[in-house]
């Protein structure tokens, strides 16, 4: 067997101790009518062959294109030390730290993560427990509902589509109302519409959710929105990207009660969707409402400083059906990646990541504008923005042939918006090179002029993938 240590002699010894000659009697209580007779699966594969199989599958993915795709998941340079630490078996093969005496490693790293994110968000209470930005956003909305006892939540349409859809799924089960706020022509949330929505005294609002930057990469008027929300007795939730918090004002500084977001940019690889790290933080006053694991500092009976999971009686194993959430995990390894990443970079390094991304993004903006694709919106951005590209879906597919992954065609997220149908959402980070930007601009010019790529060896079609590539299929 692949990893089991038992030899036939071992099995015989155990069977003998039980006074039986086979394992049959141990499964005899499975009623015959529902007893299965093995599994119709392939034969076991020795490691050598399995390794080749896995390499083959990985090889069928294309990760060599010049990528300008962000939209919630960002390429960053992860210092080599991060993965070295993550590969330590003491971290990745450890269990949830229910026995704190033998889990101080995990517990302290979670406490350190909480501390780092408290600084980045400007909020006191950080939970390491959430699956991704979408789940964290849904939990943030539910927290506000519990805290205010109101059943209506307003979310900007410029919050990440997947986060909104996930919140909708969670809300449907609880029969709560989730309404979307429109954006103005400049791409930011319409504050007049927000004020109107808040004014309905019959239907008080529990929370207002805005992204910073928003899903178009733009900077929102967070302080004003927070004020409007608070004036109406609602909580204000900021949906944030943690690397950007190294340069942007933290949620705690502009009146956010809760911050939610995706921690993937902090040292976690894209991995086609996860596992990721939902960031959830709140003001001290809301600590009893925040779902998920919290680690606190305390002492042992000899006075030694130590860490322990705390405020446990909020959680599902104790509260059961009265728990605020059913969450059981605490994404500890992903939180560890984020902690080591931030420790390696420090405040200067993290700030440089944010600032370099902004600088590259400006370079990108200029290059694309020169190639005939100007920005769609006027509001300021950090490192991501939308450009106007007629026939965006076709252009995006054609650019793949030129070895360029030209961001996200926004029609995929806003199919009914004619302006966004002609737009690509592009980003740059500190790993984006000038050469890549030039390649993108040149390819864009070529595609718009109707030319095919001179060098087809980099093209996606040349790699043997069928023609369906040109229909630009993909995730919604």
């Amino acid at each position, binding site marked *: 067997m692949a990893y089991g240590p038992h030899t036939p002699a071992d099995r015989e010894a155990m*069977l003998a*101790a039980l006074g039986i000659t086979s394992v049959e009697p*141990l499964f005899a209580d*499975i009623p015959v009518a*529902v007893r299965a007779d*093995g*599994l119709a699966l392939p034969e*076991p594969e020795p490691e050598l062959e399995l390794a080749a*199989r896995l390499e*083959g*599958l990985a090889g069928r993915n294309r*990760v060599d*294109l010049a*990528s300008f795709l962000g939209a919630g998941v960002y*390429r960053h340079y992860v210092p080599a030390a991060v993965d070295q630490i993550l590969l*330590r*078996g*003491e971290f990745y*093969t*450890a269990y949830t730290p229910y026995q*704190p*005496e033998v889990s101080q490693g*995990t517990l*302290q*790293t979670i406490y350190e993560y909480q501390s780092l994110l408290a600084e980045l968000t400007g909020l006191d209470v950080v939970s390491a427990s959430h*699956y*991704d930005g979408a789940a964290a956003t849904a939990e943030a909305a539910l927290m506000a509902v519990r805290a205010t006892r109101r059943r209506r939540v307003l979310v900007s349409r410029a919050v990440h589509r997947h986060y909104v859809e*996930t919140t*909708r799924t969670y809300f449907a*089960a609880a029969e709560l109302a989730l309404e979307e706020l429109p954006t103005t022509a400049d791409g930011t949330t319409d504050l007049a519409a927000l004020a109107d929505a808040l004014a309905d005294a019959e239907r008080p609002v529990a929370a207002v959710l805005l992204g910073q930057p928003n899903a178009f990469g733009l900077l929102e008027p967070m302080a004003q929105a927070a004020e409007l929300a608070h004036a109406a007795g609602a909580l204000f939730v900021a949906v944030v990207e943690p690397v950007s918090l*190294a*340069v942007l*004002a933290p949620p705690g500084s502009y009146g956010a009660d809760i911050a939610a977001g995706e921690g993937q940019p902090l040292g976690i690889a894209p*991995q*086609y969707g996860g596992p*990721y790290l939902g960031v959830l933080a709140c003001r001290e006053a809301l600590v009893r409402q925040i779902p998920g694991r919290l*680690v606190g500092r305390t*002492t042992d009976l000899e006075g*030694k*400083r130590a860490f*322990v999971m705390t405020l446990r009686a909020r959680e*599902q*194993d104790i509260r059961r059906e009265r728990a605020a959430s*059913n969450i*059981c*995990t605490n994404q*500890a390894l992903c939180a560890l990646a984020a902690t080591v990443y931030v*420790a*390696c*970079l420090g405040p200067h390094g*993290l700030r*440089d990541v944010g*600032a*370099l991304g*902004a600088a590259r993004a400006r370079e990108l903006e200029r290059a694309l504008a020169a190639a005939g694709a100007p920005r769609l919106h006027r509001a300021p951005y950090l490192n991501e923005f939308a450009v106007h590209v007629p026939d965006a879906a076709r252009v*995006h597919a054609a650019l793949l042939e030129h070895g360029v992954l030209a961001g996200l065609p926004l029609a995929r997220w806003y199919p009914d918006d004619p302006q966004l149908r002609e737009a690509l959402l592009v980003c740059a980070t500190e790993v984006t090179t000038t050469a890549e930007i030039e390649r993108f601009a040149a390819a864009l010019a070529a595609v718009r002029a109707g030319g095919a790529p001179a060098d087809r060896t980099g093209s996606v079609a040349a790699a043997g*993938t069928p023609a*369906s590539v040109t229909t630009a299929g*993909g*995730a919604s």
Partner: protein
Amino acid sequence: MSGAASGSLDSRDVGSLGPRSAVGPQLQPTLDELSRPGRGGGKIPHPPADALAGIPASALRDAPLALPELNEPEVVRHFVDLSRLNYSVDGGFYPLGSCTMKFNPKLNEWAARLPGFAQLHPLAPDALAQGTLQLLWELEGLLAEISGMRAVTLQPAAGAHGELTGILMVRAYHESRGDHERREVLVPDSAHGTNPATASMAGFTTVEVPSAPDGGVDLDAFRAALGPRTAAVMLTNPSTLGLFEGRVVELLEAIHEAGALAYMDGANLNAILGKFRPGAAGFDVMHINVHKTFSTPHGGGGPGAGPVGVGEKLLPFLPSPRVLREDDGTFRLERPGERPTSIGRVRAYQGSSGVFVRAFAYIRAHGGSGLVEVSEDAVLAANYLKSRIAGAYAIPYERPCKHEFVASGGPLHEATGVRTLDIAKRLIDKGFHPPTIYFPHIVDECLLIEPTETESLETLDAFAEALLEIAAEARREPELVTSAPHTAPVRRLDEATAARQPDLHWRAMTGAESPCPT
């Protein structure tokens, strides 16, 4: 509540971190205590001075960022030293019932890190993602065969998340049939806490049904509780007591007769691979904990993943987007709106593929025959271990267990005053991680022990001997047990103060004023 005082490393009370020695695990200062202005640098190039010029000052951070400044050698040493404070499967035996702490194969770590898998963006066009799409599609098929279900979704990010997804599909099913009366979910009293919590999140009330004296479901009690208000019954099989539900056929019949659906909590799948396929037996939906049965690492509490298998009835409601295989052999994601009956998304993107690379590798390594062997060895080991300790600990249920069993420290407590908590802490001194304790709640002074199939006979015997020794110590010198652990890096912790006066982050540091190190 606030961050506690952080002094410089020199002024800290050395005693508060315990005695130091040349080798062995050491308690560590926190990153803020190790920080010195000017440390760090050398990772990222410097941005141009006008990098942030396009951003209005009001949107920018005005106070300098106050994060720890450390050089790489200090970072590495800090985390290496912290890691040495952890118990882990790679380091020792973890007989945690209901957790299935089996060995995490190293090939899987290598595979997940292949750049083709690791660097793929989740919104990449399907044409760029054929390798991962194929792996996910194949994995769905493997899990469908294992679970006996018609189809599987890989979207949920954890077991509890899978439970929520499953129950949301149940809700959608009843709604689609115009049946709005079904507001109740039934669970046995031995259910894991996530079951009732999930039911509440999905808008249902939980009705708890007591177990029968033999540890199985009380069929009469269930029949009495089942009715037109029942949406689903959530069952763990084998139960959280490690016992196979012998009345499962009758129970499934009763559930379906009442118009309800049968949900199986797949946490204990390690016991029944190839022996019982829940979908084939009649369960309508089940979640699978890949971090349990399929060896993906626990990581100190996550990330896991919780795929959900469904039968015919719930097929239309699976979360979207699903992975589809075209006639020409290529793979693609469902397009938005392609399947309007879906319950929608339960998370961003399409699933924790990084975890699934590992689960896929595990299943392919074992194949069908290997997985059956996994269950046979897991069940054999549990029964063997049970027989070794039965003399010193009460075994409430005599019949053969599956992959885990419960023991009760009740009689020992009566006789000596030593509680299961104390036994658990004393096991730490003997070099073992304690088993699950005080769960399920229906057994007094409960120990739930699950050895898994990847522990050698020598380890099983050593663990049994340790437990027997502790029982003897409890009678001979109970103080030794009640004041345990003695040899762990820390002794028992003041959890009351931690909850009454929560200290959840270090005191805010001073902002990094020093110029950026070159």
